[in-house]
C-alpha cells in the first residue's frame, strides 16, 4: 500500500476485504456493459435484416 493507512481495518471493517468486494462489483459492471453492447449491436444487425426483408 503506497502512503496508505497503516491499520488495515477502519470503523470495524476489513479494508482489504471491502476493496476486493468493490473491485469485483466494478469489474462486473464493465462485463455487463460489454454484454449490453453486444446485444445492441445484434439488435442493429437484426434491424437491418428486417428492414431489407419487409420495409425497403
Amino acid at each position, binding site marked *: 500500500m503506497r502512503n496508505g493507512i497503516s491499520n488495515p481495518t477502519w470503523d470495524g471493517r476489513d479494508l482489504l476485504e471491502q476493496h476486493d468486494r468493490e473491485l469485483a*462489483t466494478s469489474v462486473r459492471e464493465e462485463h455487463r456493459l*460489454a454484454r449490453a453492447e453486444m446485444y445492441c449491436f445484434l439488435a442493429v444487425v437484426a434491424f437491418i435484416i428486417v428492414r431489407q426483408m419487409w*420495409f425497403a
Partner: protein
Amino acid sequence: MNAASIAGDVGLWALVALVMLGAVPLVAASYQFALIGVHRFRNHYDDVAPYFPRVAILVPAWNEAAVIAASIDRLIGLDYPPDRLRVYVVDDASTDATPDVVQAKMLEYPGQVVHLRREKGGEGKAHTLNHGLGIILSDDWMQAILIMDADVIYEPDSLRLMTRHLADPAVGAVTAYIKEGSQPGNYLQRFIAYEYVTAQAAARRSQNVLGALACLAGGAQLHSRANIEAIGGRIDTSSLAEDTFTTFNTQLAGNRVVFEGNATVWAEEPDAVVGLWKQRLRWARGNVQVTLRFRELWFRPHEKHRLGSISFAVFWFCLFLLPIFMIIASAALVILFFVDFPLSWETFHRLWIVNALSYIFITTFALRIDPHTAKKAWREALLFPGLISVTIIVYTCTPHLFVWCMHHSFNLLHIPWTPPVLHTIILFAYMWLALCMLVAYLGKKFDKVGRGLLSPFFVYLGGYGPLLCAVTFTSYIYEMRGAEMVWDKTEKTGKVGLPQ
C-alpha cells in the same frame, strides 16, 4: 467523354462526398461507443489497490450560502477515514452568508473544515482554486486533492472508489461520473441527464481504452500531490476551460488520467435554455481555446502520452466541427437537388441510413449503460436529435410505410399530393441538417416566452443535440471576434439530491 463531362462528374461526386461528410460524426460516435466493450479488457482495475491518502477537498464557493452547509456535511460524512479528510472552502468574496455558514461548520468539525477567504473575487473559478492550492501545497499534509463544485453531491463510496486508482503511481488524476440529479427535474435536465450518459459514462470509458482523456469533470477531479506539483501547482487561468487545460497538462506531464465510471457524483444542471446556453458557450469557447493552444498535438502520436493518437483526434474534431459538417452536408445536398435530383435523392438516403443505424446503436446502448437515467429520460434519449430528425430516420427505415402514411394524412388534411408539394418537402428535408440548429436556437430565443411552452417545443422539435451544435457554432464566432471572457456562474438552487 470530353473534359467538360469529366469535370461535371468530378463535381457531382465531390458534392456526394461532402454530403456523406455529414455522416462522419455519427460513425465516429458509434466507433467510440463500440470501444466501451473493450473497456471490459482494457481498464485500470488490474492496478488498483486499497489506498487512503490524506485528501484535501477544495471547494470554490461564491454566494453558496443556500447549499454549502449541506455540502460540507455530506463531505464530512463520506465513507472515508475522517482523520484523512479535510475540506477547504475558498470563499470567493461572497456577499451573502457563505462566510458565516462555513465558519459555523469549522466550529462543528474542528480540524476538518478550513475557511479561506478571497477579498477580491469574480475572477473565475481557476483563480479561486489557485488561492486554495497555494495554501494547501504550503504544507505537506495533503497527499491527494479533490477539486469539486460547491453544490455537487458525492455518493458515500465515491471518493474511496477514486483513490484506489492513485495506488498506481503512474496515475496523476481520476475523475468520476457526474450525473444530473435535480429533483424533480424538468425536460431540459432530463436531456442533460441523457447527454451525460453519452458524454461521460460512455465517451470517457472509451477514452480510458484509448489512454487519453479529454476532460476531468470540473466537479470531480482527484489529483495526486505529485501531479499537481508536476503541472506547476496551479490551474491555468488564461482560458474558459480550466478543467480541460488541467487534463491536458496532466497527460503532457506524463501522468495517466483515469475515468472511474462506478464513482457517482450528482450535480444540479440548468433548468432553462438561457442558463444552459451561457454554461455551454463558456465550455465551447474553452474547447476552441484548447484546440488552438494545443494545435501541435493533434494527429501526432507521441510515446509519452496518447493525446496525439488518431482516434482521440477524430473524436475531438468530430464533436468540435460538428456544426460545420452539418452545414456542409446540407448545402451540398441542396446544390445536388438542383443539379442532379436522382443522385441527390440516393445520397440523401445513404446519409440518413448511416445516421439511422448509428442513432439506433448509440441510443439503445446508452439507455442500457445507465438504466436509472434511462428510466426517467428515455423520451429525451429518443428525441435527442429532434422530432423532425427522428421523423426522417423513421422514413429512411421504412420508406414505403412512411410514404403511405404521409399520403393518407395529406388526403385527410386536403393537401394535394402533387410533385411541387413533394419537392418542397424534400428540399426542406435536405436543408434540415443545418436548419435544425436554427430551430433549436429558437428554444433559447423564446425561453420564458409563452408561459414557458415555446422553448421546450423548439428544443424537442429541433433537438437537444442540434442546440449544442448551435452553441458550438456561436463559440466560433465569439472566439473569432475575440469576445471578452466572462465567467458566467451557473445559478444553483440546491435542488439536487441523492436518488431515493
